[in-house]
């Protein structure tokens, strides 16, 4: 039975990897290398339509398989239209008397002919309208949110009906939830206060993990490799840390030496110490956001480049090599997906631990390095 399941899992993994390979099979004439580079850059960006793959048919037409998504702009009033109006950047969309053009995955306001003006550094100078569009990433975030909501609500209900014993998929999630409580929250935040932060830690862990895993499917989404998404998560950690900070937390920042020194000796030290501590408040969440973003972005670039090797080598050697490497990296990426979710949760818990500490708690950690 067990071998059967293993075989099934491996087959599924192979299928996923080969689908990813298919998804990048956008061949055309011209320079292969720059085309692959462009393709990778396009994949890393958010897009206004949910396209799975595209091909050029015999008549030379570009065909896209996927669904258009709504574009919502605020530009002298609300403007809502479907992204199919852009025809993947090939035409100009008209809404309420204004014209919009898709240029390098960004929407610019243009005239009826669609001219884009540039400054000296070749950056467009056209007006960018305020953009609230439901993009690919937003769709994935909504889907993940709904998935988590129904999954964990269902689990909670099954626990209630089953006398507190895990059932079905709960047997998979229970150890993970317990691990986050016993090995992340309690050692870092402390027995007394950890329950206050558990909802955030669990949510952020599963949210990042699920989105990372979705990034490895053939859907071709790259949500956690998006600076805006990771920044929002880090800002939540920042707000929670500082809004729940105890007086001891603020004392650590603005009076780290306490009563160990007379006040006149503290002045020259505090000129250096306090700015460093204050900067630390901002650097901590900043490192969180850069770490998650860069890891996921780098993983996607490596994976796509390895698949791109196939089209550069163009020999019988290239395909197995590129497939083998992509398969191995995919397996590593599965690990990285979990590891990054774990690190984000772990460091958030650590920061909450600083914020929640009271003085007696700080004393039994005496001598340990408390500031990162």
């Amino acid at each position, binding site marked *: 039975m067990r071998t059967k399941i293993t075989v099934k899992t491996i087959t599924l993994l192979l299928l996923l990897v080969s689908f990813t390979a298919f998804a990048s099979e956008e061949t055309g004439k011209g320079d292969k290398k720059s085309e692959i580079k462009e393709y990778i850059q396009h994949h890393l960006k958010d897009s206004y339509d949910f396209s799975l793959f595209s091909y050029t048919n015999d008549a030379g037409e570009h065909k896209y398989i996927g669904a258009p998504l709504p574009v919502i702009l605020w530009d002298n009033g609300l403007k809502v239209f479907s992204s199919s109006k852009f025809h993947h950047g090939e035409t100009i969309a008209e809404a309420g008397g204004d014209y919009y053009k898709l240029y390098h995955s960004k929407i610019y306001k243009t005239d009826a002919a669609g001219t884009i003006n540039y400054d000296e550094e070749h950056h467009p100078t056209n007006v960018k309208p305020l953009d609230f569009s439901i993009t690919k990433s937003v769709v994935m975030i909504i889907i993940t949110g709904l998935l988590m909501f129904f999954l964990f609500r269902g689990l909670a209900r099954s626990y209630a009906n089953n006398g507190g014993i895990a059932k079905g998929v709960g047997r998979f999630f229970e150890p993970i939830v317990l691990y986050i409580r016993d090995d992340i929250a309690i050692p870092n935040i402390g027995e007394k206060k950890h329950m206050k932060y558990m909802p955030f830690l669990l949510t952020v862990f599963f949210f990042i993990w699920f989105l990372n895993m979705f990034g490895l499917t053939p859907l071709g989404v790259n949500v956690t490799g998006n600076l805006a998404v990771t920044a929002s998560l880090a800002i939540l950690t920042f707000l929670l840390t500082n809004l729940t900070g105890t007086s001891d937390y603020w004392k650590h920042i603005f009076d780290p030496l306490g009563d160990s020194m007379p006040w006149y000796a503290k002045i020259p030290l505090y000129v250096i110490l306090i700015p460093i501590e204050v900067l630390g408040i901002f650097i901590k969440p900043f490192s969180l956001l850069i770490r998650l973003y860069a890891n996921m972005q780098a993983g996607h670039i490596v994976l796509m480049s390895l698949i791109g090797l196939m089209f550069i080598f163009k020999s019988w050697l290239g395909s197995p090599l590129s497939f083998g490497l992509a398969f191995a990296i995919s397996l590593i990426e599965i690990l990285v997906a979990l590891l990054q979710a774990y690190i984000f949760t*772990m460091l958030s818990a650590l920061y909450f631990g600083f914020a929640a500490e009271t003085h007696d708690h700080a004393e039994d950690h005496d001598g340990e390095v408390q500031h990162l």
Partner: protein
Amino acid sequence: MVGAGLVVIGVGIGIGKIGGSAMEAIARQPESYGKIQTAMLIAAALIEGIGFAALFAVS
């Protein structure tokens, strides 16, 4: 570009040292495996963050 390479070398050495020391520590005290692993991952993640920051500053 040379700077990026240097940073990656530095980060590699740093994480390698952390991993090596963690191995030694686990070999000495296998019972505190969990704690050592957690500390190792945090330190490795922090160094990695610096590396990524440098790479983004270069590119």
